[in-house]
């Protein structure tokens, strides 16, 4: 073999010979390797004609490669596969499809249960609304703001359905109507309702059976407060409070709540106060009945009056 470095001495010549031999060995190894692996590859190319090999490979591919999950639908992917394995693939496909269907049906079932509950509730409310002496429209509560839970909510009826500012909003509680609040803002397709529990809301209440009038005010909590009760009133806990004929905003006789606690008179005041539990629990309200009041323009908000 010709030395790589002709000018080198005997030692260098030996080293070059050794390097050349190593390269030759490496080349031989590469040649053997490529022949070996190429032969194995060609055998693999020929081998899948056997059903068992093809089946094993399809099974491995099916586990590794998601797109092959859908392979069972296309017979050309799984040709030459024994029927029992094909059946296994199809069963797996069927199982996946059924699981998806079960999930879908569970969602539908939940929706159906909610719809059935709503249907029952609406049926009761429709029956009640026929018994109500006022004309109005049912509205669904579409939005409650967590930050203003006892302050207001939106309903899905607006000016297009005849809702006007200051219309009375009733809620249903155990088959009885109760005062929930009044319409504060009206938009074409929805309205904002100011709840009686709002700190800015109030109504003139009449305490049954004597008919003593007092001002029921919201506190921003679930409880109402009744102010300006004459000190001589013999107010008992549990007494019912209804809207007073003296208040213009609300029709008379609508239940507002029941007296829960009566506070004794403070030395510097000449009236007493009481806590009132509202007739309507805003936490459970789903629909409300908006009573059309047809109030005089003077009682409407400026903007609404302009629109009209």
């Amino acid at each position, binding site marked *: 073999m010709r030395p790589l470095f002709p000018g080198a001495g005997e030692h260098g010549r030996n080293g070059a010979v050794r390097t050349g031999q190593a390269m030759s060995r490496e080349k031989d190894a*590469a040649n053997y*390797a490529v022949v070996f*692996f190429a032969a194995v590859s*060609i055998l693999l190319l*020929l081998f*899948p004609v056997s059903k068992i090999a093809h089946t094993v*490979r399809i099974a491995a591919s099916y586990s*590794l*490669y998601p797109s092959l999950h859908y*392979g069972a639908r296309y017979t050309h992917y799984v040709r030459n596969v024994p029927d029992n394995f094909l059946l296994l693939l199809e069963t797996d496909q069927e199982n996946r499809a059924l699981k998806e269907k079960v999930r879908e049906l569970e969602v539908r079932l939940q929706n159906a249960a909610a719809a059935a509950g709503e249907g029952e509730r609406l049926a009761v409310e429709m029956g009640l609304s026929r018994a109500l002496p006022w004309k109005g429209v049912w509205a669904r509560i579409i939005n409650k703001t967590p930050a203003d839970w006892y302050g207001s909510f939106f309903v899905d009826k607006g000016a297009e359905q005849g809702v006007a500012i200051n219309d009375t909003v009733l809620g249903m509680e155990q088959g009885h109507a109760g005062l929930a609040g009044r319409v504060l803002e009206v938009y074409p397709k929805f309205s904002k309702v100011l709840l009686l529990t709002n700190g800015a809301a109030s109504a003139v209440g009449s305490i049954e059976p004597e008919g003593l009038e007092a001002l029921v005010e919201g506190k921003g909590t679930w409880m109402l407060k009744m102010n300006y009760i004459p000190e001589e009133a013999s107010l008992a806990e549990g007494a019912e409070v209804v809207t007073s004929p003296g208040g213009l905003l609300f029709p008379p006789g609508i239940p507002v709540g029941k007296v829960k606690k009566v506070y004794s008179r403070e030395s510097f005041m000449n009236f007493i106060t009481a806590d009132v539990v509202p007739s309507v629990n805003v936490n459970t309200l789903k629909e409300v009945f908006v009573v059309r009041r047809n109030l005089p323009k003077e009682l409407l908000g400026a903007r609404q009056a302009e629109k009209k």
Partner: protein
Amino acid sequence: MSIIYEVVIYLAVGSTYWWWSQNLTVFGLAPNLMFAAALCAAILAGPVKGIAWGFFLGFYADMLGSDMFGGYALTYTLMAYGVYIIKRHFDMDSLFSQLVASLALSWLSILFYQGLVISFSRPSNLDLRVFLSEPFLNALVVPVMFRIFYQLKRGLGVL
């Protein structure tokens, strides 16, 4: 110990390729990480190991495929041998030579594989979009993968 690392790298490349082709395809196109890994291994490793890497990566690609079995194994085996021949004459460590090699070998590999498909399986269904775009995607990936493999070789003594 290095054989364990090599098996882990091999499986990681296969899994990454599988995940990429499932989740990161753009218009159905993704770089062929198996090809890139086979090319990088052939550049960095000795001839026998490089050819073995080519064979086993091709074997993995064949496992993921659904038609012909052994086609990629043969293609990448021959490609690794070709790289062994080429790298005795050219410096394959440079970026430019890697880009040129990945472009040229991608096309050659695709054509060779399609030839095998016609010979062993059925009429070729070569997607022209893949044929035109995959080599460029591979060319982008090969230098990155080469750096990763190079670091792994230095750090773990693999390849």
